[in-house]
Each structure stands twice: as C-alpha cells, then as structure tokens.
C-alpha cells in the first residue's frame, strides 16, 4: 500500500518547498518474536511485571540510559524504527552504540521497522507535534506487540520517563514503566541502579552558584545567522582550566577568548558552542599564569592580570550563550574522598584536566575509593556547580601499572582489547609457508645480500636493505618491505580492525599492535630465519647517490642477518669483516651520507626531541634506568633509505592514481609561529633566518659553531624549540588537496610506505602501488576519493592520539622511576613565563615547571618581587636574573600528594633565590 | 432567442464499455510476440522476422488481432493511419498548390497528390491542359478546400494519387466533416449515400466523413465542377446534418463500425432526443445500445 509523506522544508535561501515522498506500507515485516530460545537466553525478571515480557524503550530512554541498556543482563528488547531514527538524528555517538548492540546477536535486541508496517502505521493528525506523533507511533507499536504476545502469555512493556506518554499509555491499557522503577525492581542485578543517569531535577541545588540560562536552539540559530553569535568548538587551555578559546567557523576568523566560570556557562571541552562577543572594554588577555588545579582549585583571574590588561589591548573575548552540540564521552578518573564513604553523592575528578569535576551517585563508594573508575556525564543543570553523571565501570587500583596503562589508553581512545574472533579467523594458520603459486608469481631475490637493522628487542621487522655493485660501475640498491597486504585482504574483519586502530602504539612497557602478533612478529616480519614475502623497491644508482632508474616488484627474499644498530655499526667499523653483507652495509653507509648532505642542502630540517628509553626490570616491569637515545651512523643510514623509498613510491602512485593517492604532507608554518624561537635565539646573540626551511636549517647549523657566551647545548635547545613551532604532518588524498609539499623534509611529494606492519597508511599505499604495477587487482573503495580522505582523517587522529599516549606513558614511567628518589641534576631554561620557568633536563629528557611564586614547600609567596620581561625572555625573581637558555640545577622529586596527577616536582637549587629555592 | 444552459461536469471515472457480451475468440498479440514458427506462412502487415535468425520465427510488430487468410498472416492494428488502396473513396483537404498538382492531406502516412490531369476542368473532359490552366489552378482549388476523390494509384512508398474524374467527386461545401479512425469505416461497394432523412453522407475510407444536405438535382454538389452552391441552408436541414454528426461521433466513441445502415439506425434511435442531448454520455450510450441491438436483430434476421 502506498501512502504519501508531505513535508514542508525551508531551504537555506529561505524558500519554502513542499516535498512529497512515497511511503510504502508492508505486511511482511519480521517482528522478531520467532526463534527465541528461552533456555539459552532467559528473560529478565522484574518484580513490577508478573509475566515474561519484552521491553520497548522510547527515544529519551535510549539517549540517556545507554549504559543501562548495554549491560549484559538487558535482553529481549525491541527497538522501534522510530526510536532509531530519532536517536540517529539527535546523537551520533549514542546511535553508533545502539547499532553495535543491535548487531550483537547475544543481546537479543530486535529492530522493528514499525513505520513501514501496515499493522503499526498511524497517520499524522493535523496540528499534531512531531513529538506527540512519535510517541503515538511507539504506543501503537507496543499495542501491536501486546497483541502478538498475548497468545504466549507474554507482555510488551513500554519504558519511558515522559509522564504524558506514560499516562496516555496506561489509558490505552498498556504497561508503561519509568526507567527508575524498572531498574529498581530488576531481580538479581542491583549494580544497574548505579548506571542510571539522573534526570535533571533530581540533584540538589547549589545555593552558591547560578549559571545564566542557555538559549534555545532556534534562538541560537537565528543569532548565528544574523551574525550576533559565533559558532565554534571550545578548546579549554591546558594551563588554565577555567579559560578556553573558541575558533569560529568561517575563513579569517580570529579566536575568541572565554574566561571564567560564568562566561564558560557550563560548556565542556570540545563542545560546539554559540558565543556572544563582549563589548571591547571587557576584552581580556589569556592569563600568563599557569593555573594548577591541585594548588588553587577554582581560582579566578588574578589582580596582576587585571593590571596587565591596562597595559596591552585585550583580544576578542566573549561568553557562551548556548550549547549547540555536546561532545560528552566517558571519562576516567577517581573519586574524591570528601565526606564519609556512606554518603551516596560523590565528586569525581577526571584524569583529563580540562574536564570539570562530576557529581555522581553511587552506593559502592567504599569499594571505589582508591580505584580508577569510568564515569559519563548526564547533564549540567543551571543551579549546580558541577555536572551530574553516573558510574560506568571500575578499572582497577590507582597506581597499579596495568590500571594506569588502561586509563592512558582509554583517555586517548586507543583500542586495546584483544582481537575479536572474527579478526583472528582471517589469519592463516601458524604453520603457513609460502605457496608455490606465490613463488612463481614473484621475483626471486633470495640470493641477494639482504639484511635488516633495527632497535634491540624489535620483533616486527618491516624493512630490509641490500646493496650490490654491478660490473658497469653502477650500484643496485634495494629496500624490501614486508608484504603485509598479501595477508590483509581488503574488506575483511582484519582489515577493518586495522583501519580503525590506524597505527601500532608503543608504550614504554607494552605494545598495542595494529595487527595480530602472528602477522606482525611472525609471518610478515622479515626475520632472518627463512624465506619471506616482500614488496621491493630497487634503484640503480651511481656512486654519487643519483638515481638512474627505479623499479618496484613483489618478491621473495631471504634475510641474511637481523642486526641491531650497534651490531651493524660494529660490522662496518671492523675492517676484518668483508662478506657481501658487510660490503653492502659500507656502501649503503657511504651513499646515506651523500643523500643526507643533499637533503640538508635542499632544506631538510633535522630537529631533535629529548628521547629517552627506559630499561625495564624484567620481573617487576618497573623502570630501573633511563637511557637517552644515541644516534649512530647506522640509524641515519636506515632512515635515509626509508625516506628515499617513501619519495620514490609517492611519485609512482601519484603518477598512476593522481586522483586518489594516499600521501603525506607537512604544511609550512606561518612566520608568526617562529616568533618565540627567534626572540629566544636573539637573546643569545644568534640570528635565525626563517624565510625558508633551507635558511632555517642552515642557521640552526650555524648556531652549532662554538661561540662566546653560547653554551654548546644551546644549539640542541634551539632545535627542540624549533620542533614546537611546526605543524603536524598529515595524511591526505591527492585528489582533494593541491599542496603536496613536506616542509620538514623539503620534499615536493612524500608518503609512508616502509612500515606496513605498524601503520595503516602504508597498507593503503602498498595496495595502490601493487595495483599500479599490475601485481594486484583494484577494488572500488581503493579509488574512492571521499572514502580515502575519511580514512586519512581517522589515521591522523589515531596518530596524534598515539603520540599523546606515548608521551603520557613516558611521563608515567618517569614518575615511577623517581618514586622515593630525590636527585639533583643539570638543566636548561627553555621557556620563561610570568610566574614560572620551564626547565629541560637533558639527562632524563624531562621537562618541568619551576614555579617562582611559591616556596619549595608549595606555599604561595606572591608575585610582587617578580619582574617579567617578555621580549627579552627573562624574569627577575628576588633580584636574581633568569634568562632563557640559562643553565640551572634543579632538584627532582616525586610528589604523590595528588593521587591522580602524581607529578615530578622541580625545585631550583642553583641559582639560589631567597624564599623560593630549597635550602 | 432560446436561452442556453451550460453544464459542467466534474471528471468521472471512465467506464469500460463492454457492450459486446460475447467474447471473441481472437488471437491478440503485442509487439514482439511470436505468432508462429512455421516457415510456410507469408508475412503480411504488422509482422516481421529477424533476418539473422535460423528458426524463421514470425514476430508481431504491432498490437492487434491476428488475421489468417490462407497462407497469409497479418496483424491488424487497432489504430493506424489510413493505408490507401486503389478505388477507395477519400475526402481530403488541399494543403499546397504546386506546379502541376495539388497536395492533399488525407490522414495517411504521406500527403496524397492530385494531378491537374486528374481533375475535370470546366470546358469538357478531354480538354488539353494549357499553360494558362496551370497558372489558374488556384481558382479551381486553393489551400483549405475540402474535396472528395478516388484513389487512382498507390506508389511504392505509400503515397496516393487521387482523381476526381467523375461527377460524383469534387469540391465539397454546405456541410460538415467528422474525423474518425480509418479502421472504423467498413469497406463497402458504395461509400456515398443519400440518406432518407434528407442528408447525404460520404463515408470516406480514410476516416473523414462528410455530411451535407441532399441538393435538388440527382448528382451531388461536387458536380465534377468547382462551383459550390452558396445559398443559405434552412434550419431544419441544418439540424438534420447536426444530428447525423452527433450520432456518428457517438458511434465512433464506442468503436462501432460505421456504414450506412448503422448510421441510419443511430439516427432513428436519436430522434427522440434533442440534438444537443445526444452528446451527453447517458444518451449516447442509449443510442449506441439501441443501434447495436437493431443491427443484431438484422443480422439474426438475415442469417
């Protein structure tokens, strides 16, 4: 049967259109009641409802009580199409979760397409609001299910918190229950009660605070359209959690500063908000103060800051008038131990400093104090200082390494569960060997002197090299990369999981693999214990490292040796070794040096970061010593050829697939980014030229020359500072972008090809390259620009998160290393702020803040005796001058006073400052 | 003056008119249907074979009824343009005056031609056509004139050559023309009828039906000549012509075959109604039903 849906739609230009759509009603829609095996999946028992029953939740229940629905005891639930549609419309993340549950067969959630079923269709009454219409749909469907189930003596229960809907349902003779009542009366699962999200009115009112009301969405939209409000994402400052910036949409907009609790008006980090600009005389400056939650919770702008404003012009400032889209997720953290554990209301402090504290209600407080828990935010009413939330799950004890690792991974959205069965099913068996067919199809390079050079303890060997001299004097150089795409076929569960993970994450003590270990450490890894499948890039070069020709092929190789950097270096240096692998290594080393010099001449930047490696005690897995990464010749050698391979592959795939190649670019930073660096260098009499990367590279090299008043380590510091001025390099799809350049490497085109075991982008590049040499077939997603760009966006996100997670892991281990120790060490001032300096300690690769406005016991001392000179990057504290790049001595200690944010404290020892330094 | 009433009807559901109770056992085909696979049959209109095919399948190319006459198979389409045959009477309108002929539009695939040598010019039949005649063609027949003629010849491409070399044919006037589908006109010996009610009809094979008053003399106004009587025609005679026209249109709408008898019966059945009432659906159905029953009776009476 055919019905028509007529809607009136307003277009962007303001025209009103009448849209007519067909709407077919069917009589063959499955209601999901058949095939229920009650023995395997017993129905939920509930004191309120006498018979066995199915639950039908309405939209608000799904939106707010997702955690309850995800609990394993909730089964036999019918999700109506109306509810799914509304959920999708209102919240994409909840919709995703809903879909995951419905696709999980064990949960017995059935989606019933009620809007197309002739039995449950209702026509919209004139002047009926869409909410009422949807509610009626839900009631009619419940009625239908009641009738279907009556012969089995089962019932259908409508779960709704909407009072009006409840009343109407009861009038129609339906069983309707609110979620609280239902959950309270469930037999056998009392923990569900904690997972309940609270309704707005439930919580007590904080007399002290009253936030301004949020405007309605329609008012916000008209405001944005008329230009009165600006829309953008809120970024809370890492230094000061009561301050944030909003970058409005639209080209050429400047960031708007939001300061203070009232102006933030209950907006949480990453929410999309609508901001109203304050008048110019109220414009403010971002506070130079580093606001530390533990020391001064809830502090507002200081007076010195207000004085500052009189000197300089403020930047555009505004206040939040409404929230357009919330970006709430689940947060890890701990319960504050206020009050007695018998109380049910507690405050939860998230690990992420930019999120405010959350009030939750739980009966298990005694159990949970001392544990890391996960909490989700439900709402933030006007009269409550903190947002309301509910408990989701507990992770484990605070301080326990596994728990802390879990927190780290959760906060950075790194998937770390073991691979699902579906993924493992895609793997070949453990005793897989190369089939004859592959041997025939590929080039046999097993006779070549191939070897691999990797960090010690590395099991996932991606790449091998070889070099051979030909009789005509030219050199044949080959880079062989593990042929991962042979095992990971597109579209399989394995491929989808790898795509979602994006990259392997290397924590200090753990490695979260992107692909299962069977592949990464065994079948794909180019170990020296047999034949392996590889993807080879072979150049013919002359002795001056100029490429004469390039070719790519799929091959079979046999690595002669898997060495560490140290071993390879020893072989090269040992004149007695003269086998073909060593000769190859020496040749590669020579070429690498030439390549590196050429790159630097072109403007490639070699920046450094204080990388440090932990020695981990093999039993307790606690760090026992730190070791700074030493760069040897062989590191550089491997790196040079990897870069060369990446460049050659980039050129090839761009030529073949100009529309959909996966490439990597590094946008050039604007000159203003370098201001801090140039200023700092100038204080030491060094002029850095930043016009092109070449000039920057050359001037950084100049700085290495010994000079008066210039400590030799300063050149390293300059490089470290330079790294911070850069943008991130990103993956992109060539059809959607015109600027391919990689600023940092000074390469016109670049991609990632050499590490497919640990990066998904390399897998995509492998597929493109294989298609271009005819070694593999294409498939439709390979050539779809939009798909590729979306995947690149996800990869960029995962890459960033992995970096943050890695840094957090290093920080965690550093803290654990310094537990119970107090060490004095040399450091350099790297940044000067108004109330503190940031010091870098090269030995440990550690960077921390030395506060100048408190004494060594943490008590505030006041800033009256501080004179800060921003342009000269110096500060005078109690008469002592501290300049950027000054060498200082600091005392490093571990501070466990804040359980969640255990930290490393640095106290200034030399130069000694009265009242601040430690005695 | 009599007042006129205007009746506006809302659109009503179309009714299928299953007037004919008995089912015809006819073989209906639609384009692409296989009629027969026998190679013996000769192909007629409305059929075709695929040259490349081995099995000699005969396909229909139009939708209609299959007619089998001995070994000839053809498919008669429900509605076609007029396909002329030698000896048919046609009524057509002058479309163009060309050098030595007129182009006549006759509801067929191509326009028919009327050569100057095929008409009776004043001055006798056997007069030689002179140059002067050519120049004065327009005086005899100009664009827009209605003529009745007979098909003299059918060319290869289907174009018809007409002639009016008889006193029965010529320019038509003082009457009205009704257009129906050519398939509704029954093939008879005679197509020009003088009906007892006082009107003359020409039921031309190409679907153009001409109704006029019977003039005094034995022959039609056509006269072989080109003069048309331009006297005003009295009201009663005009009514007769009108009534006939309406009846013919009713019959055409219900797809009843048109020939002198059926037209006459329809006329007689309509006498009880006013002329303008005949056009209403109810009345026209009445008339048609009566006509058919009269025809049936006649047939059963005959055979």
């Amino acid at each position, binding site marked *: 049967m055919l019905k028509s849906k007529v809607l009136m739609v307003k277009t962007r230009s303001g025209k009103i*259109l009448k849209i007519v759509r067909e709407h*077919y009603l069917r009589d063959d829609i499955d209601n999901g009641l058949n095939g229920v095996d009650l023995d395997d999946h017993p129905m939920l028992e509930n004191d309120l409802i006498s018979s066995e029953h199915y639950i039908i939740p309405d939209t608000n229940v799904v939106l707010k009580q997702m955690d309850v629905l995800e609990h394993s005891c909730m089964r036999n639930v019918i999700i109506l199409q109306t509810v799914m549609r509304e959920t999708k419309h209102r919240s994409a993340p909840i919709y995703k979760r809903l879909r995951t549950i419905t696709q999980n067969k064990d949960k017995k959630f059935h*989606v019933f397409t009620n809007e197309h079923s002739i039995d449950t269709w209702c026509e919209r009454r004139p002047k009926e609001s869409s909410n009422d219409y949807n509610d009626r749909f839900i009631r009619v469907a419940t009625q239908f299910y009641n009738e279907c189930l009556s012969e089995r003596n089962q019932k259908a229960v409508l779960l709704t918190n909407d009072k009006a809907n409840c009343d109407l349902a009861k009038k129609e003779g339906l069983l309707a229950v609110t979620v609280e009542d239902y959950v309270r009366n469930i037999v056998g699962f009392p923990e569900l009660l904690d997972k309940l999200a609270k309704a707005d009115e439930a919580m007590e009112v904080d007399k002290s605070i009253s936030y301004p009301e949020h405007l309605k969405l329609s008012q916000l939209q008209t405001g944005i359209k008329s230009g009165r409000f600006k829309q953008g994402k809120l970024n809370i400052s890492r230094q000061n959690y009561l301050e944030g910036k909003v970058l409005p949409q639209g080209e050429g907009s400047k960031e708007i500063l939001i300061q203070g609790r009232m102006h933030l008006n209950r907006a949480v980090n990453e929410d999309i908000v609508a901001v109203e600009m304050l008048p110019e005389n109220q414009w403010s400056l971002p506070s130079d103060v580093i606001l530390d939650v533990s020391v001064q919770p809830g502090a507002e702008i200081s007076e010195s800051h207000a004085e500052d404003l009189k000197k300089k012009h403020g930047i555009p400032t505004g206040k939040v008038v409404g929230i357009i889209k919330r970006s709430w997720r689940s947060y890890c953290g701990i319960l504050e131990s206020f009050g007695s554990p018998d109380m049910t209301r507690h405050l939860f402090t998230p690990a992420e400093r930019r999120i405010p504290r959350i009030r939750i209600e739980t009966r298990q407080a005694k159990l949970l104090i001392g544990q890391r828990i996960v909490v989700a935010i439900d709402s933030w009413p006007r009269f409550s200082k903190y947002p309301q939330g509910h408990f989701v799950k507990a992770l484990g004890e605070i301080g326990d390494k596994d728990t802390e690792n879990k927190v780290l991974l959760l906060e950075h959205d790194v998937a770390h569960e073991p691979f699902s069965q579906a993924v493992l099913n895609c793997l070949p068996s453990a005793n897989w060997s190369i089939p004859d067919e592959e041997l025939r199809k590929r080039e046999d390079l097993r006779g070549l002197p191939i070897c691999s050079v990797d960090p010690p303890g590395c099991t996932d060997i991606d790449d091998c090299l070889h070099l051979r001299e030909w009789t005509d004097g030219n050199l044949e150089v080959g880079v062989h990369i593990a042929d991962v795409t042979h095992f990971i076929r597109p579209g399989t569960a394995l491929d989808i999981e790898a795509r979602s993970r994006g990259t392997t994450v290397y924590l200090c003590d753990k490695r979260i693999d992107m692909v299962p270990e069977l592949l990464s450490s065994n079948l794909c890894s180019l170990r020296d214990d047999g034949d392996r499948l590889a993807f080879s890039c072979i150049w013919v070069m002359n002795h001056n490292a100029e490429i004469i020709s390039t070719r790519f092929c799929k091959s079979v190789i046999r690595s002669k040796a898997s060495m560490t950097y140290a071993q390879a270096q020893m072989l090269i240096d040992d004149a007695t070794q003269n086998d073909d692998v060593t000769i190859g290594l020496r040749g590669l080393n020579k070429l690498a040096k030439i390549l590196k010099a050429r790159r630097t001449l072109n403007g490639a930047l070699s920046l450094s970061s204080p990388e440090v490696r932990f020695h981990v005690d093999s039993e307790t897995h606690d760090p026992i010593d730190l070791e700074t990464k030493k760069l040897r010749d062989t590191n550089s050698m491997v790196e040079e050829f990897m870069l060369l391979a990446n460049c050659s592959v980039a050129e090839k795939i761009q030529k073949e697939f100009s529309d959909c190649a996966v490439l990597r670019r590094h946008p050039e930073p604007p000159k203003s980014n370098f201001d801090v660096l140039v200023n700092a260098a100038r204080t030491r009499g060094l002029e850095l030229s930043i016009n092109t990367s070449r000039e920057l590279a050359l001037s950084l090299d100049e700085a290495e020359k010994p000079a008066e008043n210039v400590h030799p380590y300063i050149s390293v510091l300059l490089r470290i500072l330079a790294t911070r001025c850069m943008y991130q390099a990103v993956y992109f799809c060539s059809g959607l972008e015109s600027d391919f350049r990689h600023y940092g490497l000074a390469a016109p085109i670049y991609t990632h090809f050499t590490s497919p075991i640990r990066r998904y982008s390399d897998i995509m590049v492998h597929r493109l390259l294989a298609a271009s040499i005819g070694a593999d077939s294409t498939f439709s997603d390979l050539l779809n620009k939009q798909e590729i760009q979306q995947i690149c966006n996800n990869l960029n996100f995962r890459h960033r998160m992995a970096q943050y997670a890695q840094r957090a892991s290093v920080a965690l281990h550093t803290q654990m290393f310094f537990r119970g120790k107090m060490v004095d060490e040399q450091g350099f001032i790297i940044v000067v702020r108004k109330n503190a300096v940031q010091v870098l300690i090269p030995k440990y690769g550690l960077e921390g803040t030395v506060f100048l406005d408190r004494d060594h016991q943490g008590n505030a001392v006041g800033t009256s005796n501080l004179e800060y000179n921003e342009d000269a990057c110096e500060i005078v504290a109690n008469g002592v001058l501290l300049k950027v790049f000054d060498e200082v001595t600091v005392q490093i200690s571990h501070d466990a006073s804040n359980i969640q944010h255990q930290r490393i404290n640095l106290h200034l020892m030399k130069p000694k400052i009265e009242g601040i330094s430690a005695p | 003056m009599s007042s006129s009433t205007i009746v506006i009807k809302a659109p009503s559901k179309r009714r299928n008119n299953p007037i004919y109770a008995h089912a*015809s056992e006819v073989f209906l085909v639609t*384009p692409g249907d296989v009629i027969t696979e026998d190679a013996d049959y000769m192909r007629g209109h409305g059929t*075709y074979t695929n040259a490349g095919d081995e099995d000699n399948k005969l396909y229909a190319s139009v939708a209609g009824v299959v007619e089998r006459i001995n070994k000839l198979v053809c498919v008669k389409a429900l509605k076609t343009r007029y396909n002329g045959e030698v000896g048919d009477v046609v009524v057509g309108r002058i479309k163009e005056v060309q050098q030595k002929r007129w182009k006549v539009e006759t509801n067929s695939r191509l326009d028919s031609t009327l050569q100057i040598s095929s008409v009776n010019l004043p001055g006798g039949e056997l007069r030689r056509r002179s140059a002067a005649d050519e120049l004065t063609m327009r005086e005899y027949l100009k664009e827009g004139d209605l003529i009745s003629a007979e098909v003299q010849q059918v060319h290869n491409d*289907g174009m018809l050559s007409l002639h009016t070399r008889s006193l029965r044919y010529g320019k038509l006037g003082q009457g009205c023309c009704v257009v129906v589908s050519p398939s509704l006109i029954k093939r008879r010996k005679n197509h020009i009828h003088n009906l007892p009610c006082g009107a003359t009809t020409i039921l031309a094979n190409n679907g153009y039906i001409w109704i006029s008053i019977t003039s005094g003399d034995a022959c039609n106004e056509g006269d072989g000549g080109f003069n048309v009587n331009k006297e005003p025609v009295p009201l009663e005679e005009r009514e007769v012509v009108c009534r006939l026209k309406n009846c013919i249109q009713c019959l055409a709408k219900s797809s*009843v075959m048109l020939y002198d008898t059926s037209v006459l019966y329809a006329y007689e059945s309509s006498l009880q109604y006013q002329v303008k009432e005949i056009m209403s659906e109810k009345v026209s159905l009445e008339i048609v039903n009566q006509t058919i029953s009269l025809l049936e009776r006649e047939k059963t009476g005959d055979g």
Partner: protein
Amino acid sequence: MAGLELISDQGYRIDGRKPTELRQIRCRLGVFTQADGSSYVEQGNTKVLASIYGPHEPSSNMRSKISHDKCIINCEYSQASFSSAERKHRPRGDRKSLDMAAHIKQTFESCIHTTLYPRSQIDIFLQILQSDGSNYCACVNAATLAIVDAGIAMKDYVCACSASLAKGTTLVDINHVEESAGCAELSAAVMPKLNKIVYSELNGRLHEDEIGKVLDSVVLGCNDMFAVMERTVREHVEETVSNFTHS
C-alpha cells in the same frame, strides 16, 4: 556515506521498499483522442504523458532530414515548471531537455521499423508532470505504450529501468532522494522478449567489479516493468477489440 541511510540494516529503503522492488506503476493507453497514439505512465511519483503523431508528412523544418528509405523520428521532451519541488521555469530547448530528447530518439530509432515508413516523420512528445527520479525510464516506458497505441510497427517493447549501488547492494528503480544521494546510477532500456539492451547510461562512477551486478539487476527490473506494461496493453486491446463489431 551520506547522513541519509539509503538502505537500513533491516534491508529497507527510505520509502520502505526492498532493494529489488519497483515503485507502484500505473499506466494507461489512449489518453488523448486527437493524437495518433498517447499514454500516461506513473512510476511512483514520476508522472509522464506521451503523445505520438505519425507517421505523417514531414513538417517544413524537418524537410532537410528526409530520408528516402526510413522515417525520421522527432522527439521533444519537456518538464513542467511544477514538476519538481521548487518551481522552475524551463525554457524550451534548454540543454537538459535536448539531451534527454536526443537519448530517447536514439533509443527508439533502433526499435521502430523505420524502413516501413520511408519519407515520413514520427513525432514523440513527452511531458513530465511530476518528477521524482528515473525520468528517462518513465519517458521511455510511456513512449513505448504510446507507440503501441498508435499502431506503429516495433520490433519489441522497450522497457527502461534504473539502478544504483549503495553499501554493496543494488537498489532498483531510483527515486529522487536516492538520486541526489550521490551514488552512481545506471539506467538502461531493454527489449525484453528479444533480450537486447538498446540503451544504457551511467551517471557517476562504478568500479569494474560492480558494474556486472548492477547491470543484471537493471535488466531484471526491466523485465518486471515489462510484465506490467504487457498486462496493460493486453487489457486495452481486449477491451477495444471486444467493442468492434464485426460483421
């Protein structure tokens, strides 16, 4: 892909159809009495009127194209200004109309027995009253029925259908919403009894592996279309024939 889900997890499209189902089809022959052949076709909310004039003497502006052994087909396509959601005045002879007309002309030139009507002209006039996707297909179907009504000789019916690919499933008979979702759309006109493809058109890009699948489902859709059209024609013919009195 887009925010709009073209096919739900349960396998239903936006309007409730399954992927292989056609929309509701209504057609009628012999709508106008003054044209030689006419028809009206509704495919869901796409409504088309077709009228055929011919074969007749070529009109003056077509004199140049007279062919001594075939008839010329003249096709005109127009969309009423009220046919889409936004009222838009479409002048005669604009690019899209001419394109569509040329495609339809091309389709029918291979199906009508043009050699039977030398030196004549057949006019096909198509008017879209309401446009909701698959315009070309509805036009071809309407024109076929009108040609059958006019008694012009054809080799076979010409049935047209469209299909698109969403999330790996082929959707048959695309409506406007599915068209604007941006997936590739394949339309094809097929002679069902002879099993030949007369015309096919692809908007958008399809991967080599997928095109076979989509083409197959289009052909199946055309066969379904044919069943409906054949039934209509037969009913019409039976009704008309039963009205003829034969002596």
